[in-house]
């Protein structure tokens, strides 16, 4: 056929080939491992330093040191991963799975079981002491900036 009707070959192929799309809501999409879907927190490691809150380009993350909560508005989050880069304790991660749409924006809040170091209190156990001093160091670094 050559120059004449060059699309014919493709047309015949189309008739006998499988569709390139998937039946989306019925066949769920499989995400690769690296997909940046949403930000997750490992709350046990969080020291409430607030680095993620200050570095977040759209300002989606709020860290409340007094109320000991870490919250994210997933509708504002742009999944850039800068908070993950900045986190001094590496407790944030980006995992597959997108936020589902909803009628209104809401925040997702996590209560963080972190005890801020008290200057006068004596550390109870050596293991706890190291984490506390590390935490204090991170906090002082934050203040210095």
């Amino acid at each position, binding site marked *: 056929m050559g120059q004449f009707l060059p699309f014919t070959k493709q047309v015949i192929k189309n008739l006998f080939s499988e569709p390139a799309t998937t039946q989306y809501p019925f066949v769920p999409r499989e995400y690769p491992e690296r997909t*940046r879907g949403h930000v997750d927190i490992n709350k046990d490691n969080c020291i409430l330093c607030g680095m993620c809150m200050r570095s977040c380009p759209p300002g989606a993350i709020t860290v409340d040191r007094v109320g000991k909560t870490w919250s994210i508005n997933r509708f504002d989050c742009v*999944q850039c991963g*800068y908070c993950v880069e900045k986190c001094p304790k590496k407790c944030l991660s980006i995992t597959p799975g997108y936020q589902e749409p909803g009628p209104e924006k809401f925040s997702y809040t996590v209560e963080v079981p972190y005890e801020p170091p008290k200057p006068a209190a004596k550390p109870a156990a050596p293991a706890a002491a190291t984490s506390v001093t590390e935490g204090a160091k991170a906090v002082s670094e934050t203040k210095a900036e």
Partner: protein
Amino acid sequence: MGNRSIVPYGPQHPVLPEPIHLDLVLEDEKVLAAIPSIGFIHRGLESLTSKKDFNEMVYVAERICGICSFMHGMGYCMAVEDIMNVEVPRRADYLRTIWAEMSRLHSHLLWLGLLADGFGFESLFMHSWRLREKILDMFEASTGGRVIFSVNTIGGVLKDMPADMLQDFVRQLNDMEKEIREMTDIFLTDYTVKSRLVDIGIITGEDAIRRGAVGPMMRASGINVDMRKNGYAAYNDLDFEVITSTKCDSYARCEVRIGEIFQSIDIIRQCVKKIPDTEINTKVTGMPNGESFIRVEQPRGEAFYHVRANGTKFLDRFRVRTPTFANIPALTQTLQGCQYGDVPLLVLTIDPCISCTER
């Protein structure tokens, strides 16, 4: 003298997914002049430098455009690295080159689809977007994002690609090359396609220079200008020829872009062969002070970045001149004297990205 009228065209138009408005002065069916206006989605990204520090601006720069997002981030990072005298590790340069060329591939496939849609060849549109989808999947597997990659950082890149992933990509691209070849042959030989493209929207080389056209628009007029030959990132190690055409019409622009698709695949293969095993980023300390002018070759043409820093963490000025902005004067030139029915097609041949232009 015929009947003169002014026809508003856009910002909402079935052929154009993006908001550009043209006031077309018509004499019967012939366009006498076109007056463009933009800014319907102006976001003021350049002025965000006063609120976001220079590290966060990487993520802002990426969001200038959805198609060349990687290149915008890369251009911005290169400009800041130039100010701060940061030497980027070689592997990061290669990774940037690979991602940049993949962006070019997916941008050109997207454009081919839009062009086919523009002249009403819907199944070609579907086929080029089907092929583009595979590139997006490759992006998702390597960076985690399909459109916005967020892998650039000042001093290198954030994510590495392991060797088996690179080999897998090359294998997939080799398979795709045959399919792309089949599809682009239709663009280059089909009678209906040719009747819509050949001898339409002629812009001569001299005019292209005078109007400041960039990218495939310029190369289709026989001007050999490609910023990749400047040797930024890893391009100085790679072997490639600038693709030009001397036909000056819409068909030539299509031809140049199709040529660049295969060139990109070839460049990615070369990169995978040559990629060195080093670190992927260097630690950058201190604040930038000074200014820099960087030009990178985006799929749509040359983009210009001017970064001016004052020694604090907020930049004084971040200027992006996107390729579409530079091509608008050339577009008004091609529109003069064309038929009204060809206007959507001619707007498409500059590969307009109005979101880029607005910033």
